């Protein structure tokens, strides 16, 4: 299959179209503008709709409307814009509407800057909006994986009737890498008989995201929780690499994940026993797998482009069985291979031995 050199933002857009996405609503924000720019040309070509919304708030509710009709629909943004979508995401989750949201995240907090960061992990994974809901969160680390996970995002959204967030960052969105568009084969999905399309001859339906009766609302919540437990059982996903019996296990997602791969390679060349554990699904977090993988290691080093967010999920996974260390950068600073390697040396020298 032909390889094309493609920018992350354009690749996710093209993959969305190929996955059947026919509506996109969004508001410009760096570093993900190429997504809308691409789709503004591409979607009309396939009979789809590209609409620039007046704000991220409007965009996410346009998504809500389109998703309610059963269409495959997407929006994308970055940090501040995704924050503005939190109420909408909570509504989408409550109404169990499938959709895909891309966050090419950037330095925060506040307006911050537009360089790559991973400091929206908590927001994406724990639920930045109100209420007991979860997004499915996918964290690609290469443009190819971005493409593959985009297909998968639409599939999972429909399968679980849940909003899916693709959590990338400015680096992934802006960089070009060779990609191929292998259309994946997924098991067939149930018909969207819940979709609102006018009652036609049949019975009328509605989609709402409220239930003024506590019992009713609790039932919805318990149903959602069952879905989230099912996700944890069935969809938790990760990648590993390196020494099968590592002394130090490196854990990082997305952009940091790929940098850590270089660290492992470099470290192994130097004779260190290193391995990488890279969660691909951030929710469901591959807790069980990480717990297994952590057995027998001397320590875990979590590296993130934030100041310790996934770190908590790692600690929850290993339950105090292994010491967990952290190295983070934030604000758009990207950790380098040599810096991380030095940190690993430091750990081996001091902290762990002592």
């Amino acid at each position: 299959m032909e390889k094309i050199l493609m920018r992350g933002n354009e690749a996710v857009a093209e993959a969305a179209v190929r996955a059947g996405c026919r509506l996109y609503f969004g508001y410009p924000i760096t570093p993900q503008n190429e997504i809308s720019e691409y789709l503004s040309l591409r979607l009309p070509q396939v009979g789809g709709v590209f609409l620039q919304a007046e704000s991220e708030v409007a965009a996410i509710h346009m998504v809500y409307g389109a998703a309610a009709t059963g269409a495959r629909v997407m929006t994308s943004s970055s940090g501040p814009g995704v924050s503005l979508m939190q109420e909408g995401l909570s509504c989408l989750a409550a109404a169990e509407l499938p959709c895909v949201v891309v966050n090419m995240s950037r330095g925060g907090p506040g307006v911050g800057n537009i360089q790559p960061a991973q400091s929206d992990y908590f927001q994406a994974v724990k639920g930045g909006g109100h209420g007991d809901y979860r997004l499915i969160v996918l964290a690609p680390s290469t443009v190819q994986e971005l493409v593959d996970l985009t297909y998968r995002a639409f599939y999972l959204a429909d399968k679980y009737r849940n909003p899916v967030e693709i959590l990338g960052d400015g680096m992934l969105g802006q960089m070009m890498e060779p990609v191929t568009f292998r259309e994946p084969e997924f098991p067939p999905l149930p018909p969207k008989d819940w979709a609102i399309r006018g009652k036609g001859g049949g019975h009328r339906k509605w989609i709402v995201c409220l239930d003024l009766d506590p019992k009713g609302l609790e039932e919805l919540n318990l149903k959602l929780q069952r879905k989230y437990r099912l996700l944890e059982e069935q969809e938790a996903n990760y990648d590993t690499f390196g020494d099968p019996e590592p002394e130090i296990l490196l854990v990082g997602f997305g952009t940091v994940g790929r940098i850590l791969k270089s660290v492992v390679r470099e470290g192994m060349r130097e004779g260190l026993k290193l391995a990488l554990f890279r969660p691909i699904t951030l929710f469901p977090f591959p807790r069980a797998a990480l717990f297994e993988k952590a057995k027998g290691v001397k320590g875990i080093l979590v590296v993130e482009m934030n100041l310790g967010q996934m770190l908590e999920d790692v600690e929850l996974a290993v339950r105090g069985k292994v010491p967990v260390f952290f190295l983070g950068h934030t604000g758009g600073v990207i950790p380098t291979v040599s810096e991380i390697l030095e940190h690993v040396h430091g750990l081996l020298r001091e902290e762990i031995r002592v």
Partner: protein
Amino acid sequence: MKHHEILIAGFGGQGILFLGRVLAVAGMLEGHEVSWYPSYGPEMRGGTANCTVIISDEEIGATISDRPGVCIVMNEPSFFRFAPTVQPGGLLLVNTSLVRAKCEREDLEVLSVPANDLAKLYLDGAEVTNTIILGALLAWRPIVQRESAERALAECLRGKREKLYTLNLKALEVGWEFVEKGA
């Protein structure tokens, strides 16, 4: 093992990003791992642009480089900003038409190409200084084969006018010859 980290910097409008893309596509066509990463955002409002291309036989981790092995500076501000970051022993390619300053580092290989002058001289001043620089680079150091670069040019200009492709081939040649014949 092949592993090149190339930083290309200059004004917006000098075709910095295009030059990087051609390099990356050429690398891809040769079957290497490649990545291309631009500076982006308001930085560009100041009129400058840069990108990093990595061509490697190994999966690429970071797509930026704080110590590039090859650095192309197409104007003076870029020279001052990036020349100090080049890896010792690395290659600094300077567009001397626009960079008057001299490199004082002794630990670098410096290739001087007066790209704008060459363009004026041989190509009626056409805006292809970027491809001239590419030709010179590849003549000096075969990061990719010249013919891969030519195929990459074709690919990157697909859908554009044929004339443009021909012009760029010529520019590649001009840069190449400049190095081969005498730089």
